[in-house]
């Protein structure tokens, strides 16, 4: 028990979170207009089509921006400070938020290549990024 928030899947996101538990990262792809989107939704954010397919994303990307957090928002994160939060642009063209794990926070930089790994959190695997 880490005490950190555990994502609660809903109808939009259940396939994504189930895939995380298999070690796989899924991104929604719109069959109508070709748009890829994250986070998962019930319709395409660009053309509003509901004809969406799940595609396995390449588990790598680059840091678009980051911050090193020294003031935890809740007690669950207090033991981790300082920790890195990054916006990671996946090679497949979508942006996700992750922690940069297995890395000295001092080393995190914009443009840094990362690989996606999965952190086990009470029965739910959560995608994280580590230096490539």
């Amino acid at each position: 028990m880490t005490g950190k928030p555990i994502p609660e899947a809903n109808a939009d996101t259940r396939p994504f979170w189930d895939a995380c538990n298999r070690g796989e990262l899924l991104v929604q792809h719109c069959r109508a207009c070709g748009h890829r989107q994250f986070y998962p939704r019930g319709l395409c954010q660009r053309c509003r089509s509901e004809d969406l397919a799940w595609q396995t994303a390449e588990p790598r990307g680059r840091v678009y921006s980051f911050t090193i957090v020294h003031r935890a928002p809740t007690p669950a994160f207090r033991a981790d400070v300082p920790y890195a939060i990054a916006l990671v642009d996946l090679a497949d063209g979508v942006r996700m938020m992750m922690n940069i794990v297995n890395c000295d926070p001092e080393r995190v930089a914009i443009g840094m290549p990362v690989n996606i790994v999965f952190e086990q959190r009470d029965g739910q695997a959560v995608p994280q990024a580590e230096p490539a």
Partner: protein
Amino acid sequence: MRARVVISGVGDTPVGALEDSSCMSLHAQAARDALADAGLGFDDVDGVLCAYSLVEPHPMLSSVFCEYVGIEPGFNAVVQAGGASAAIMLAQAAALVAAGQCRHVLIVLGDNRLTGMTRDKAVAALAQFGHAQFEQPYGISIPAAYALVAQRYMHDYGVTPEQLAAIAVTHRAHAARHPNAHMREPITVADVMASRVIASPLRLLDCCPISDGAAAIVVSTPGIDTDKPTVALLGSGQGHTHEHIVAAPSLTDFGCKQASRLAFEQAGVTAADIDVAEIYDSFTITLLVELESIGFFERGEAGAAAAAGELTHGGRLPCNTHGGLLSYGHSGAAGGMFHIVEAVRQLRGEAGDRQVDGAELAFAHGDGGVLSAHCSLILGRL
């Protein structure tokens, strides 16, 4: 110029640690003062707009307020758009008055999140702005979300931490001129740089404090008999691009661009015509991004301008003359209303030691979420 809608009254409580306050008592106090300022009473109010409270959260806060003060208005609703709430409420009230649906709309916002809840609880409650599945699991906070913007913006436009610090220093100097401000002790760039890191690159003094306080405005149909200069809403506009920072289409361009463009168009003025600006400044980076996105300064220039004194009296754009959220204080939804109250006082010539000479046209702007929801207002003295 003949206005269809005027701002007939403004009111605010002290700001800071108000030990004997409750969320609703602060609402009532600000409302009473704004109505008195307009020469009106509670029974003249036929429209009410409230926002939200972290200390006393309720799905019907405006009904709670009306019950608390004992009024039964013909229109009553809540607007929740974070720090953009106050500006959006003013635009909405103006629409109600212009449409003839109301004669006097009371807008009131406030909270006592400094003394009414622990700092830890306030920080945790604010983290709820993050996406429950795709942001909160990573320990996101409001400062961390803005820090993501800051890091990228500094990378792209060469903004330095010292330039951000200059914004904080300017705001503190302004607050020292306001008797009600929460943080009035002067600070230097070195003080900001020496303050502890909250979420890099943002340090403690890059962040606004948590304050108790409330503010209210009365929006009326013209014709009230008053000896005060008349202040009118000349234009407003909004821009909404996202809620969660993970879904923001850009980390350098935000809805303030559209919001300000629409407001300037409606008022028939440009940024160069503005005498005084009161712009949402939850963090130093918030103001810098807005100043450059709106077009008051070129990209990468607002930081240097702040350091050169361009954001204070006698500078190119006197900005946040009350001290802003950074130093005047941040009382939840009321934070964005303090900017508007200050704009009205500047236009009336009632700003005392912090008066901008000859202020006739003011720009006020609210930002909710993580630069997510924006509303710009152009206010003018008639």
